[in-house]
């Protein structure tokens, strides 16, 4: 792995240490934080309660939300495709599409899966697509959020460039709030595992209130977002 | 009998002697023995807030000295009481003065805070049948943390119709020297405050800090508005069935 270049660090950091009235330190033991208010939130909620909270929060963020079972998922998917104006549809390369038995319905709709062999024209296809389809890796109930650990297969373009975004949420991915996502990432970092280059937490369609504090839904990111929650386990 | 030392504050002493008299009488009626340490001057806030720490320290030292023998120090100004609470930090580098400052701060109370939290009284037997609204002063609420006491006391004033003031948390624009250093801004803040007061249709504005009242009242006067401005001590000292003042007809019943 190529090492990047660091410039001017010594002079810069020596100056900071001087200002702090001491010599340079190169390591510090992070304290056990006195205040950890995040640890108590929704701790004892059941998956059912978390699901209800997720649905409520997602709707409040102008996302559409549907609940379905693994059997009915293909049907719900078709309905949503139609609602969102149909093809062209792009999807991330994700083993879960097969796991949930979606191959045939996706093939019916000519869904194009992200394929690194096909080169950077993939980005153009995503930019020209009407719908981007992906799976949530972790789902935050409190804020109606899907967390994506994007990599070369689960490409970030899928839920960024198309006009609308459909996100399949396996119920097993539900956690109370961002605390659990951060804990999960933190553990991996501590264990020395290099994390994905893009970790994106998406809480609905893009929006802005920059004009007279008037909320407009749909700016640069997807203008519509739909979560389909699948009761898996 | 509880011995209370009155910290009258320079503004009150200079411009609102009548308010000070009402404070004394209310406290006495509630069973306190009030004394007045003559060595008191100004708490030093105008100098401190303007950055003149050394001059403020001179005032602070004198005040600490003046109130050394007091059991309770009570002031009709939340802002000035809050300044006493600031003294320990001001003397942080001087352990002897810091301890004296700490002792003074620990026994200092704003007037309504003292009545409700120390004397444990909410009904002082006052009667004042007017429609009024109450101005919450910034230092009293935010720095001193006294938010409930004035309302508890006013609730028991017979005949008083208290209307809530909207945007009450917005500063009136007094801010001590701010009122003379930043006149155009101070003016706008006063005018917005007055707009909200007028929305309540109150006849009287009640407050617990003479600085704010002097500023809002002075502006009301200049604008020719008929709203009366009173310190809460004056309201609490109103007895009599028809809302007549309790004693001393000559006493001014308004701050302005």
């Amino acid at each position: 792995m190529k090492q990047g270049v660091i410039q001017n660090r010594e002079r810069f950091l020596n100056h900071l240490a001087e200002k702090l009235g001491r010599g340079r330190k190169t390591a510090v033991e992070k304290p056990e934080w006195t205040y950890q208010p995040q640890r108590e939130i929704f701790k004892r909620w059941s998956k059912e309660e978390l699901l209800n909270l997720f649905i409520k929060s997602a709707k409040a963020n102008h996302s559409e939300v549907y609940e379905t079972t693994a059997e009915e998922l293909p049907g719900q998917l078709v309905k949503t495709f139609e609602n969102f104006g149909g093809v062209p549809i792009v999807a991330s390369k994700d083993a879960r599409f097969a796991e949930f038995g979606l191959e045939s319905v996706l093939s019916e709709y000519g869904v194009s899966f992200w394929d690194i062999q096909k080169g950077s024209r993939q980005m153009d296809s995503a930019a020209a697509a009407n719908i981007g389809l992906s799976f949530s890796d972790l789902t935050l109930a409190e804020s109606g959020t899907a967390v994506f650990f994007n990599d070369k297969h689960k490409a970030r373009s899928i839920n960024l460039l198309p006009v609308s975004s459909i996100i399949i949420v396996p119920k097993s991915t539900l956690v109370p709030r961002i605390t659990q996502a951060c804990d999960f990432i933190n553990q991996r970092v501590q264990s020395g595992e290099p994390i994905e280059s893009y970790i994106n937490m998406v809480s609905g369609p893009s929006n802005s209130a920059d004009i007279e504090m008037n909320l407009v839904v749909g700016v640069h990111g997807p203008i519509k977002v739909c979560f389909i929650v699948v009761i898996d386990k | 009998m509880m011995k209370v030392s009155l910290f009258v504050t320079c503004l009150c002493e200079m411009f609102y002697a009548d308010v000070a008299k009402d404070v004394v009488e209310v406290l006495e009626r509630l069973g306190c023995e009030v004394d007045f340490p003559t060595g008191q001057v100004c708490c030093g806030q105008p100098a401190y807030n303007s950055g003149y720490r050394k001059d403020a320290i001179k005032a602070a030292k004198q005040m600490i000295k003046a109130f050394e023998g007091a059991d309770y120090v009570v002031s009709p100004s939340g802002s000035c009481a809050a300044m006493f609470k600031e003294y320990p930090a001001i003397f942080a580098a001087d352990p002897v003065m810091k301890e004296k400052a700490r002792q003074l701060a620990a026994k200092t109370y704003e007037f309504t805070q003292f009545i409700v939290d120390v004397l444990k009284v909410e009904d002082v037997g006052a009667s004042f049948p007017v429609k009024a609204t109450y101005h919450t002063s910034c230092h009293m609420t935010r720095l001193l943390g006294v938010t409930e006491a004035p309302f508890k006391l006013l609730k028991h004033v017979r005949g008083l119709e208290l209307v809530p003031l909207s945007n009450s948390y917005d500063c009136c624009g007094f801010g001590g020297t701010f009122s003379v250093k930043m006149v155009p801004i101070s003016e706008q803040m006063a005018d917005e405050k007055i707009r909200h007061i007028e929305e309540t249709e109150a006849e009287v504005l009640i407050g617990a800090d003479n600085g704010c009242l002097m500023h809002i009242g002075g502006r009301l006067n200049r604008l020719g508005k008929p709203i009366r401005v009173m310190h809460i001590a004056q309201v609490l000292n109103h007895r009599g069935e028809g809302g007549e003042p309790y004693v001393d007809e000559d006493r001014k019943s308004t701050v302005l």
Partner: protein
Amino acid sequence: MSMKIGNQPFFERVEKNLKDPYMRQAMASVQDRLRGRKLSATVNDESLVDWEMWRNAGEEIRTHTLNHLDVYLEQLSDNFAARGGHVFFAETAEEARLYIQELVKKKKAKNVVKAKSMVTEEIGLNEALEDIGCQVLETDLAEYILQVDDHDRPSHIVVPALHKNREQIRDIFHEKMGYTKTEKPEELTAFAREQLRNSFLEAEVGITGCNFAVAESGSIVLVTNEGNANMVTTIPDTVITVMGMERIVPSWEELDILVTLLCRSAIGQKLTTYITGFSPELEEDSLDSPKDYHLVIVDNGRSNALGTEFQPVLHCIRCAACVNVCPVYRHIGGHSYGSIYQGPIGAVLSPILGGYETYGELPYASSLCGACTETCPVKIPLHELLIRHRERYVNGVGHPKTGEKMMMGLFGIGASTPTLFQMATKMAPWMLGPFAEDGRVTKGPGPLKPWTEIRDLPAPSKDNFRKWFKQHKNSNSEGGADS
């Protein structure tokens, strides 16, 4: 562009802006709205259990981080570089500009897209890139509007184009870009999306700011709503992140707390639409990641606060909660501060970054009401720091009016000598007597003149309180006439 806005002296700016009715009404309405939203999402949100604990957590984390800033910046740069990213430490704005100019020149890039970043505005990056022939496009909607309007300056940290109404924006788009639709925000926004879409897809260099850098993983976290930051960090081949050196957390554990504080305090959201943590790409065959990552860490005067009583100002997470409760900001608006950092945080930070010569009046534009200190999610004692600034100002770095120092000196003497004080109190009614009419003074002399410019002053009580009190005590001890 740089941190400074305009060249007019402070009082002139204030007078001018006080006379702008749209701006005044916009400020008041935004404040009321955002204040309410923050309260609902913080103090009044029972699911958080105790908002004070969150503030304490924020303060604790920021204090520790700043006390070990050298450690965490070293860690951040090591981890960023270990993934192939390049790090440049810039002590001054000029160093940062030069590095970025050289980099962009080497890449022969012309199309630059930017996500919102106040530090890039602070260091004047846009002009520096335009100077070398680049087209630099602001992609955040508000910043885009300001840019199209001949580089108008921001008036609020979170809602920069607050001072413009929809008709003005429609006219700007029409005049500069040939826009023909209506002033409806949906249509204006759709137009911006359309205009910027192609620019995103053709961009060669993307520039971002940094909400929080995570030291332990070498990551940059951006907190946004529009999706433009995601476009900027996905499509171009090169991404340059400019970071105020204090915008850092030790690990993802602390990120949780600070992102929660920021989203809820700024706009009352639990999380913004996109919380995006990116790190230099490790997979060489990834098709939609930038190839080249640069992190420029900027001091530009922030270290002036380190190790001093002003250090807490570096806790700031740029939520603008203080701006939203400031009664002074409410009336004078963002541009009056003459700095891209406005309101209470602006009044404390601008003199530290830009000196007292330019920003010395700002700490005085406050009634010290304490609303800012009360609301700050990371517990910066803002109004107290304004007093600390005033102390420095009158003790040599500033130019207080000569009369004032003398007056305060006299005050100090009078306030430490009870007899002098009592004399002043006794004399006041007689001195102001000639100016009083009907119990009030309408045209005060000397130092009272500014007061009476807009307010009446009560005539000092002729009835001396101390005398009354003595008599009152005597009559009480004689069996009391009061009943």
